[in-house]
């Protein structure tokens, strides 16, 4: 703060949100500024609280799948997957191979869609007038079309069921997927040309809002934010589920920097992960074989009383996990959701204090939170 004998400045408290164009939902930050510089920041959330965990106790195991769609509504496939893995652990059943491949494929498509939105919104926060965002949406729209083919819905998919997926892909899905992957190569390249080395993006994001690995691990941060800090921790590699042990892919990690990962690293990790997801999808499409897609589990499930299970996946934003406890009834006794967005917010203060207002918006974009998941 500039406090000379004649100049005195006064900190100013501003509420960024819950209605603000770039807080990614109804998120509120109470920020104290000195000029443009952030002195203090307090994230406040809960404006989108819908009581998902409590609602899950009122529904049977299959019905809860529809609730998971609405957690992180830009990556509902992955949410389905996490929940179904938890229920499968609870029951001790395993999905058939084709079901596993379909789940992997759908989850990776969803990861591309979610990362595209993440990238698009970082650039929107950087001040582009929506052009890269529109290009991202263009590709995402194609993915949603594929989802419509798979399960009849685009956003709230409810595609997966405990024991597999509810139905096989229609025959016209595979040529459409091929076509999408071909077109997407071109679009991805174009997006890279537009933004990846753009000087303005560079000066705005390089060296801004460092997150050291130590702080990230202490804050239970996961996903691209953690990997941007230099640790290649990805549950798909560390503890492979579904078909991830059968496909080859890399975990992109930027060169280690003791200061930590900056906004560009987080952005870069997402861009690179899209590439890896495309690799996984291609392998899934090549390896998948005919067969059943769903284990013989009924619609109404009754796990053993006292059984508990923790199913986790690497969601687009980090580690998403469902902890289920059964009391022998048809609905979970307890359903705890470990949502990556909420835990990634624990480092908010670390990321934001000392930087400027404009950086704050971009940093929030680079953490890529989703309020549906934060407030649950």
């Amino acid at each position: 703060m500039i406090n000379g004998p004649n100049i005195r400045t006064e900190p100013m408290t501003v509420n960024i949100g819950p209605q603000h164009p770039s807080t990614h939902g109804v998120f509120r930050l109470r920020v104290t500024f000195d000029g443009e510089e952030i002195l203090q920041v307090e994230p406040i959330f809960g404006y989108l609280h819908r009581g998902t965990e409590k609602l899950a106790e009122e529904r049977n195991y299959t019905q809860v799948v529809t609730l998971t769609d609405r957690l992180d509504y830009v990556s509902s496939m992955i949410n389905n997957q996490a929940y179904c893995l938890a229920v499968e652990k609870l029951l001790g059943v395993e999905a058939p191979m084709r079901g596993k491949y379909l789940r992997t494929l759908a989850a990776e498509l969803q990861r591309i869609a979610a990362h595209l939105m993440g990238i698009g919104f970082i650039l929107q926060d950087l001040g582009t007038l929506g052009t890269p965002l529109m290009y991202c949406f263009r590709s995402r729209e194609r993915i949603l079309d594929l989802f419509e083919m798979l399960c009849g819905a685009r956003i709230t998919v409810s595609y997966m069921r405990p024991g597999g997926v509810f139905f096989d892909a229609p025959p016209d899905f595979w040529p459409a997927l091929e076509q999408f992957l071909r077109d997407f190569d071109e679009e991805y390249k174009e997006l890279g040309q537009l933004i990846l080395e753009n000087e303005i993006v560079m000066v705005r994001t390089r060296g801004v809002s460092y997150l050291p690995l130590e702080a990230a691990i202490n804050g239970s941060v996961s996903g691209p934010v953690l990997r941007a800090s230099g640790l290649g921790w990805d549950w798909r590699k560390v503890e492979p589920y579904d078909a991830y042990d059968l496909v080859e892919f890399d975990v992109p990690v930027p060169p280690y920097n003791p200061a930590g990962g900056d906004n560009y690293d987080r952005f870069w990790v997402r861009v690179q992960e899209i590439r890896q997801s495309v690799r996984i999808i291609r392998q899934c499409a090549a390896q998948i074989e005919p067969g059943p897609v769903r284990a013989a589990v009924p619609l109404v499930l009754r796990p053993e009383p006292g059984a508990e299970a923790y199913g986790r996946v690497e969601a687009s934003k980090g580690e998403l996990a469902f902890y289920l406890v059964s009391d022998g009834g048809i609905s979970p006794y307890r359903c705890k959701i470990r949502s990556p967005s909420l835990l990634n917010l624990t480092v908010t203060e670390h990321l934001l204090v000392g930087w400027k207002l404009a950086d704050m918006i971009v940093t929030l974009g680079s953490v890529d939170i989703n309020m549906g998941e934060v407030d649950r």
Partner: protein
Amino acid sequence: MYGLAMAKGLMVTLKNLTKKPFTVQYPEERLKQHPRFRGEEFVWYEERCTGCASCAKYCPLGIIKIVTSPSETAPAEGDKYRLEEFDIAINRCMFCGLCVEACPYDALFMGSGFEQGSYSRQDMVITIDELRQADKHPSTFYRPQLEAQEYDPRGGRPLDWRQVGRESWQWHQREKAGMRIAGRPAPGDGDPDGEGNQLSAPATGEG
């Protein structure tokens, strides 16, 4: 470097300026919808419905209201109930399709519409009469037999109740005949034998 990447970015936007727009002007032009699309206006075949209320039970939101009464024939032997009310409050519906998945007799189908905006909540409740009278354009969601027929709900002809079911529909007839039914899988569940879903030609009568 030196603004070259920025120039590259300008070229990308310029290239896109010459491309055909990706969006369409909605009311005049529509995107192609996949037949599996889960839409509004549920399609219900009374002839196939036994009034078991599985759909109402599986609905996560409880928006399906079913009132039945025992029919004149022998209900204890597996005959169907008579439907008095079958209301679907689609203003609260989230189109998850669980009701369709749960229907053992292929009596309930998702529709394919998405344009049922209304000024009143009452208008959004589909009553049994509306369901009876509606044109039958069922979505192929969870009904592989329709996909096998390459049926397109939008623009296709209305389907009769005899054309939409699969063999499993006749199970309750068999139950009536005293056949053993224990351990049969729910229709549509992946069968553990790995034979895929056994689809038969559309049932043409009550076998």
